[in-house]
């Protein structure tokens, strides 16, 4: 059996949870901190506590840092709302009494109607199409009845509808599963569905047609919980596997957890002192996941015998619960592509479903938590059923009394709104964890024009930039660490965040507040660390914490000399409210539309908009505000090295003159030396003017060289020359003669060429001999061939300013079209002005492009 479980332990998933942008909290280890000499903002002990769960003694099995609920997350920032597709969460268990549907939240899941308005292809008027389908159905009914197959009431109708749907509605109908399925559902359900109008629609119990009690919470998603509980308790083969069921139109995703065959919920440690078994150290969880629980290992028997007794003792305790399953229900808007569906399910599964179920397993193993809570919830439901309590009342009661129900509520509510869920399981010691589906904090690419219809879906308001904070200095993506040359931009008012942190009052609050106070968006992490002599790792850790909690994003440090333009992705529908907020924040500044218009008119240094030097602070705040809202983005400068014809000619001339020199010397004496040089240059040379000559001469020298080396042994064997050998040597001679003649001709041709002349501005050199040479672009100075390196040397030699010339080789590596020139100063640890002054001297040789 292939174990496809991609993340074998809680510990791993704790960092893995952070997904594509895992700026989570668990990345720094105490060991790494020891190396830092500077002042520690975070005492190691605190850091450790924070890296783990705040109050949990078990570092790895406890999920990442949870804040108290009061602190939840920041306000509705534009970038932070993504539709996750989640419509509800339910908990199902299998106990001695068979499968039981324990709890679900929200009590009445709303499946957004929009989700099921599948726009198929080019249907523009959705209503029209839907109506058309209804007509089809009617026809279908009529036709079937006419065939004498009507089976009276609901039964026939259902089958009939199905038929007509598949037959007639096929072209258009296959995308309207939602509707079709709902319609095909049993008539009772659809009838009830039409009844669902008011808020109290299904809050109360009522009596069905046959006098049976219809209990409001026994139907979810128009499906009876009695049926759901059986279909959502899969067999043991799904133990800790991805369970993914599609009941059109809903997707049920979960990570079922079964009781292990040895009767425990968690693999026990070998040395089984009871206490140790309870407070399991970190490695345990990993071990457990690595070993297939179904695999009868050698120690299994031993364990069993040890465990048999406690198991029988506890039997009553866990009520024979053999599995539990927290199922996440998704309703995914179908926009025609399966990739989209797949991605949604994947995101929820990887980031939320798995971790939540694992946490439940941890709690269950620790103190039978899931069973006890389930028992409580079920008994409350039973009682309420007898008393015919309204559902809303019951749900409030349950969530007040059961921390598991409350946790389900919290996860479901938060993930549905794409927030960070903070989960608190009241075990002893309690489990605190946070779950989120990571949201991107910047876009590196505008949605392509080919799918320009998606442009509006491309999260308008999200910052567009290609500056990737996860790239390390060598250009590799490192998910665990922020680039130290980035700065932290708070996504909300500084004072507001500080006061939130204060009210939060965790052990981490103080360092965070201090850090926020010290860290302007104009300074990189490194600069902040150096200026305040704090350890860089602490700075990064704190920054990652704020980023994980969506209160800040990493950006290239803001600088007044940089250029900012109105972002092509800004959400102008938010303009009205944003401009009011702007006035409130900056009453004395130009109005928002005015300011944006000014910025957008032509790209200029931001500094040039300052009315005076004194406005600097204010204007930098304004800039931060604009970037935070995705209104503007930095226009960065990228460049490539451009080789002008004059340089190309010069290099070529030099190379040819070397060749002429080499060919003039008799090949025998300078065999190996010039041969090598010749070879290289000619093989690298693809100058179209005389490819034939070059290759001929090189091959001749080659052959003669090899001849010289190989002949002596042949001759020493004293064998008479065969006719072939004679012919061969004659041929070689002829070739050599020809090559010589050619060399001569080449030398003559070379002599007639004009000598290269270095002008002050190679770009303006209009000399006739350069007219046919096109300028050349060096694509990537990291990967260059010999010719490019000759060009680069030649250009370097041209630079007059001594300092600039010295730095040429050093700076060249940034001229690859990928590294922004704005970042050179930071990366090289130079003064900004100095770096730009040097670059300015190179300007003639650079092809410059400016984009974000």
């Amino acid at each position: 059996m292939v174990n496809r479980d991609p993340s074998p332990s809680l510990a791993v998933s704790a960092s893995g949870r952070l997904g594509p942008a895992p700026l989570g909290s668990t990345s720094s280890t105490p060991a790494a901190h020891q190396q830092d000499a500077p002042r520690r903002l975070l005492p190691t002990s605190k850091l450790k506590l924070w890296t783990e769960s705040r109050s949990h003694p078990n570092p790895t099995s406890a999920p990442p840092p949870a804040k108290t609920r009061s602190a939840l997350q920041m306000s509705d920032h534009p970038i932070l709302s993504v539709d996750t597709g989640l419509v509800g969460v339910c908990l199902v268990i299998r106990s001695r009494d068979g499968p039981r549907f324990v709890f679900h939240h929200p009590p009445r899941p709303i499946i957004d109607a929009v989700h099921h308005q599948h726009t198929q292809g080019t249907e523009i008027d959705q209503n029209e199409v839907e109506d058309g389908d209804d007509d089809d159905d009617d026809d279908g009914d009529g036709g079937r009845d006419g065939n004498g197959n009507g089976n009276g009431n609901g039964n026939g109708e259902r089958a009939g509808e199905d038929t007509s749907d598949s037959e007639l509605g096929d072209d258009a109908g296959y995308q309207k599963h939602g509707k079709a399925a709902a319609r095909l559902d049993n008539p009772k359900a659809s009838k009830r569905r039409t009844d669902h109008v008011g808020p109290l629609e299904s809050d109360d119990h009522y009596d069905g047609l046959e006098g049976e009690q219809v209990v409001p919470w026994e139907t979810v998603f128009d499906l009876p919980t009695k049926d759901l509980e059986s279909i959502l308790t899969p067999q043991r083969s799904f133990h800790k596997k991805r369970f993914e069921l599609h009941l059109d139109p809903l997707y049920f995703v979960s990570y079922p957890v079964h009781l292990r065959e040895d009767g425990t919920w968690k693999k026990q440690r070998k040395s089984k002192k009871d206490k140790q078994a309870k407070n399991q150290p970190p490695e345990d969880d990993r071990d457990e996941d690595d070993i297939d629980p179904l695999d009868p290992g050698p120690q299994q028997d031993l364990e069993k015998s040890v465990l048999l007794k406690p198991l029988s003792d506890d039997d009553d305790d866990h009520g024979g619960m053999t599995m539990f399953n927290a199922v996440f229900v998704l309703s995914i808007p179908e926009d025609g592509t399966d990739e989209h569906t797949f991605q949604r399910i994947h995101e929820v599964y990887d980031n939320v479903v798995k971790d939540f179920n694992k946490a439940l397993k941890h709690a269950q193993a620790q103190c039978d938590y899931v069973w006890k809570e389930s028992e409580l919830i079920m008994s409350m439901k039973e009682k309420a059923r007898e008393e015919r309590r309204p559902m809303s009342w019951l749900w409030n009661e349950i969530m007040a009394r059961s921390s598991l129900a409350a946790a389900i509520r919290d996860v479901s509510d938060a993930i549905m709104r794409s927030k960070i869920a903070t989960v608190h399981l009241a075990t002893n010691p309690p489990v605190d964890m946070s779950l989120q589906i990571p949201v991107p904090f910047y876009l590196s690419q505008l949605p392509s024009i080919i799918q320009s219809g998606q442009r509006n879906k491309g999260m308008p308001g999200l910052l567009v930039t290609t500056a990737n904070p996860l790239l390390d200095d060598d250009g590799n993506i490192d998910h665990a660490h922020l680039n130290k040359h980035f700065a932290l931009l708070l996504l909300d008012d500084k004072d507001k965040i500080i006061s939130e942190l204060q009210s939060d009052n965790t052990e981490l609050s103080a360092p965070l507040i201090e850090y926020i106070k010290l860290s302007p968006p104009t300074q990189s992490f490194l600069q902040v660390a150096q200026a305040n002599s704090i350890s860089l790792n602490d700075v990064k850790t704190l920054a990652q914490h704020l980023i994980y909690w969506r209160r800040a994003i990493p950006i290239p440090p803001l600088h007044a000399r940089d250029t900012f333009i109105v972002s092509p992705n800004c959400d102008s529908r938010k303009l009205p409210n944003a401009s009011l907020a702007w006035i409130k924040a900056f009453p004395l500044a130009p109005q928002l539309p005015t300011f944006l218009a000014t910025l957008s008119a032509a790209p200029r240094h931001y500094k040039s908009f300052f009315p005076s030097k004194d406005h600097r602070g204010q204007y930098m705040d304004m800039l931060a505000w604009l970037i935070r809202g995705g209104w503007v983005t930095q226009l960065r400068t990228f460049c490539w090295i451009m080789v002008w014809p004059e340089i190309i000619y010069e290099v070529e001339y030099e190379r040819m003159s070397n060749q002429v020199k080499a060919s003039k010397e008799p090949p025998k004496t300078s065999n190996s030396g010039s041969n090598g040089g010749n070879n290289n240059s000619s093989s690298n040379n693809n100058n179209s003017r005389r490819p034939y000559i070059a290759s001929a001469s090189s091959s001749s020298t080659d052959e003669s060289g090899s001849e010289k080396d190989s002949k002596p042994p042949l001759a020493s064997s004293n064998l008479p020359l065969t006719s072939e050998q004679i012919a061969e040597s004659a041929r070689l001679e002829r070739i050599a003669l020809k090559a010589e003649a050619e060399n001569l001709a080449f030398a003559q041709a070379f002599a007639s060429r004009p000598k290269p002349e270095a002008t002050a501005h190679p770009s303006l050199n209009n000399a006739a001999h350069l007219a046919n040479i096109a300028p050349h672009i060096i694509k990537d100075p990291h990967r260059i061939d010999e010719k490019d390196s000759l060009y680069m040397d030649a250009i370097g030699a041209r630079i007059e300013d001594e300092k600039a010339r010295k730095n040429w080789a050093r700076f060249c590596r940034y001229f690859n079209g990928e590294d922004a020139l704005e970042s050179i100063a930071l990366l090289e640890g130079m003064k900004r002005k100095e770096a730009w002054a040097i670059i300015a001297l190179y300007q003639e040789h650079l092809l410059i492009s400016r984009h974000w």
Partner: protein
Amino acid sequence: MAALPKIPIELMEDKEALKKILASILLLVSESSGIQALRLAGIFPLPVVVHRRHGLLVVHLFHGGYLFNGQSEPLKDFQAGANMIEAIFFARFLPQEGTRVVYQSPPGSVVPEEGVDKPRLFDFEVLSEYVIPRQAFCNRIVTIKDPDYKYHIIGHPVCIQDPKYERNEFMFNFCIVIRVDIKPTPYKTAVRRLAGHFTEMEIQSQFLSQIDESNTQERRAIGPLLEIIKEDLNNYNECNVPVDDANTINMKLFTIHATPPHIKSWHVPIMKTKVNDIVDDTWDLSMQKVIKEIDGIKDVRRIAHDADVALNLTKIALRHLAYYETIIVLDMFLFGNIYQPTAEVKDFIDDKDDMQTECGNYCLINGPRIDNFYLCRLFTSLITGRTLKEWIKMHLDQGFEILKFVDVRRFIHYGLVKGLIYRVHKYAISHQHLLEKATSPSSHPVPATSTAAPAATAATANPGTGTLSGATAHTPAQGHWHATETPTSPKDHLLYKYTDGCHPFDQITTEKNMGDPKIMDSLRKWPKGDLEVMYR
């Protein structure tokens, strides 16, 4: 054709009769080969396409939408012969035995079969609950993935309730098994269709429930039937299997494309494929007219006008073409436009996929072919704040006459299509308009939807639509503007509704038939200081 039987038109409402007609057509064309399109006007309201393939006749009925089969639209996602379907099986619920797989293809792939020694794809016992689920989950697509996350098992369980059955119900399911990495949607359609066909046949003649007892000659047994369906879907992405006199199973796996963009009246469609070559007179008339007018220069409004087709119909037709990825929509090309490179321009400089040569050939005019270097230079020198006119002038000043060497329109189109550059649009923003929007709550959630409305409605509707009428009652801001600046309120301005920063100048141009200078002129009448022009 002459031998077509006369069929009364009333019969068309009857599906059974329809099938009979189809069967007779099959006979008629059985001698011919290749693809034939029959449009039986007067008899069939629908175009029918008959293929002869692999010894089978395949009949496609098209209703609604346009005919895009025949030769176009290769199925990109399915490669013929790729054997996407790993297995297909028929399961039913037997009151005594429970869920049972009656037929499977290939043998032994789902449940053990005598004489087959291959490993099964998955453990059917674990998943049988999802193949024949409880009644509440029947009659819908039910898909489960096996515990090893290797296969989709796509089914559409059907439950027919009738007193004639034991336990008053008959449950069955035809399932298709595909690998997890294959897109399931086309197969869901197929499965739904299978369920539909067999439900109908079961209702007609207890086709499925009586399998065990008699296997009469004229009926095809289900086993071979499934085998054929699987093979044909795997090899040809479609199948046509006559089951008995009255029933034929026709299925085709359709590629599902992404939802196409909404077409705006200022968009310019550009053909990607030569639709003109495949269009024939069975196509929708508006579509035919519209296609003729697409030349890569005309905007949608012009196309509608020149084709004499209503604007909204034109948009629908174009959207349809966009759905099949036969056109690309770009912006209007004007020399006053501004373009800005994106990070993808690096791909061009790096000459990824030989883009430079491709671009050079695309925008070549009858002159010498310029070196690729100049193309790089042209792209990188585009920048926000510089109109094309200025850009051309700049290069002219540097001694490079762009217009002599490069078809600028095609050059820009190339950049747009490849994502190397994007258009910087021009927007007018009125402070007062924003203020009103911010203060009138009703307008807040969905502004700017009116852009999608056809021009006809937009013209008749009150500028600013309903949302602003509420705001007219209390307009302190308006009074303010009255007092300070102009005698006329900006609200009465012709362009007022475009001044919330959500409507590009292009839209004004097409909807009001005004060029950029005229718009700017008109906006000059605005109260001073209230209007801003933003580029983004």
